[in-house]
């Protein structure tokens, strides 16, 4: 099944390579991986979706913790989250089906961001199922090009995936986060 991991990593050159290389080296498949800044300077946040069983996800988590630049890893698969993926879809249009497509865009609460004589670009945000559904609906009209950002996730409520000054370590032990030697 698909697991969603949130990893907080140090914002340094090569960290993405280290994470990606780990998945390759240990033969795990990444379904999607997104990375970007957080509200804390120097810390980036990755949302990683992997397709594997529970035991393997525990292994991935342990391996991620072995990377010196990885600060915190959380498997949010079974926790209440808001997850979003963004897609831009370039679809071919004709004068006859243009209105039809615009109606579909409204139904899915997507947005038209570019219009040309023979095509338009539609932007849609949502969870993966919604986007997959929209793509299927558009497919008969002819999809010229599509790009997706991959999933980002955030825990619902006041729980956060932020790095805590005191955090759980790889084996659940409480440790100080910013210790120096």
């Amino acid at each position: 099944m698909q697991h969603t991991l949130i990893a907080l990593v140090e914002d340094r050159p090569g960290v993405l390579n280290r994470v990606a290389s780990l998945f390759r080296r240990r033969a795990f498949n990444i379904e999607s991986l997104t990375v970007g800044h957080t509200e804390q300077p120097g810390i980036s946040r990755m949302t990683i979706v992997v397709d594997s069983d529970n035991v393997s996800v525990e292994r991935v988590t342990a391996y991620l913790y072995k990377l010196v630049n990885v600060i915190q890893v959380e498997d949010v698969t079974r926790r209440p989250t808001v997850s979003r993926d963004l897609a831009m879809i370039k679809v071919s249009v004709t004068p006859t089906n243009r209105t039809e497509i615009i109606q579909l865009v409204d139904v899915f609460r997507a947005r038209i961001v570019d219009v040309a004589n023979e095509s338009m670009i539609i932007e849609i945000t949502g969870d993966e199922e919604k986007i997959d559904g929209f793509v299927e609906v558009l497919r008969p009209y002819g999809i010229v090009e599509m790009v997706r950002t991959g999933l980002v996730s955030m825990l619902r409520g006041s729980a956060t995936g932020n790095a805590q000054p005191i955090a759980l370590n790889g084996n659940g032990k409480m440790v100080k986060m910013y210790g120096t030697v």
Partner: protein
Amino acid sequence: MKYTGAQILLESLIREGVKVIFGYPGGANLPIYDAMGQYPIHHVLGRHEQGLTHMADGYARAGGGVGVAMATSGPGATNMVTGIATAMMDSSPIVCITGQVASYYIGYDAFQETDITGITLPITKHNYLVTDAHDIGHTVREAFYIARTGRPGPVLIDIAKDAQQTAIEWSYDDSPIRMPGYRPDLSPLPADLQRAVELIQSAKRPVILAGRGVLMSNAMREVLAFAEKTQTPVAMTLLGLGGFPASHELALGMMGMHGESWTNRAIQEADLLLAFGMRFDDRVTGNVKNYAPGARKIHIDIDPSEINKNIKVDVPLIGDLRETLNLLMPHVCDCDHQEWIDHIKQMKDEVRPRDIQNLPDVGKLYAAHVINDLWRFTGGQALLVTDVGQHQMWAAQYYWLDRPNHLITSGGLGTMGFGLPAAIGAKIARPDANVWVVCGDGGFQMTNAELSTAVQEGVKVNIAVINNGYLGMVRQWQEFFYERRYNGTPMRSPDFVKLAEAHGVTGMRVTTRGEVERAIRSAEETEGTVVIDFRVEPEDSVYPMVPAGAALDAMIRRPQPTVPELEFDEI
């Protein structure tokens, strides 16, 4: 005060207690060499960068602290790869420092440029590319801290040449380190400790599996006390040998592919396995599907990623072995497993007649005899460094170690050519040790150029070349599994006596068992390095053997002695 990057590096190395660098100069690390003269650091010039990393590794394993190897960019750096991977697999703390082309050349395929941080990413515990002199100080601090803490391992620092040359205002105290993601201070959960105690108390047929973690956490005394209190037999991994005295009545010797049959059968029949700082390598478990089917498993390891990796365990205890055993000890009561111990002893007695030590002397020179004689004539006190192959397994079987840290061998990666350079590093770390290298004719020739290093450094190591004219372990596999098609394994070697003499050291040749003692004693009395060419039986095999992928108790047994006129009782 102003320092160049090279000076900052050396200042920082001194602060880390570095006394020796195993290195090889080149264009991209010349600024470091230029500054080296000002510092009390001894430089050992190797003959190949693979040898340098093995020397640093041997130095670290012999107890010298974090070993330091240095090379230039490009081929210098790539030649280190085998040594780094070896250190990674055996959790050996080394720091490798490579020169890199100037930062403004990086990415342009400059002369001798190679992406060594990219190349070594999966075979280092961590690595760094430093392009600014300001980053050198704290990087060295971090690198040494990472290399020696938690589960130790190799760290590589790649330093651009311009960063070595730039002079900046610097003081060591201005090099604070901040590693929010690195937390080696793990300890087991109380609930897991409680469950472990319950399993230990209720076990009827327990076995301790002692790995290299016993030595690295310095837990020999704790393991001994635990084993005696709970009356639990102790099997060891190859790298765990010496962690528990071989002559102790609870010692089972080495487990796994070339473990003795009673050892592997005891593990298969056990109802509780206590894994102490080991990782259930496939050479130890055989087929994992039917590994110790009736046993509950308690796994103590400092590395959380080892838990449930190869073998699913019932209780994981993540933390330092010594600390964890000290937490467990007060809660386990004295146990009595006399029936179990007697049962193992009975299995042991059944195979004793097959033991090569109980075979009659038929005038042939067997490698196992040579190694056991070496044990006898060195009083079991040598610091033994092996290469990889048959001789390594015979050393594990017949050089019985009662003390820790007297065997250095490449286990995880199985690196041929490891022996001689590792021994040079070990001898430099422990100048008073009686260092013996046991290697094959194949492995010796992979790195025998380092004989020159030994001579230049005035280092004395005794080298026993177990010369059977084959790549023996591969030949053995061909004999067992490929119908004796000896393709690629027969090996013609140079005259090792003359090779030794060409290097200005002593060479000897031994062809009969009667000469073994004299050669060993004479080697020990000789001042410099000695190479002994032991011409042993060409087609001898290591028994017992668990074929790769077979169950641990499905062993190819040692053949019955083929000398009909002798009764075992008379031998």
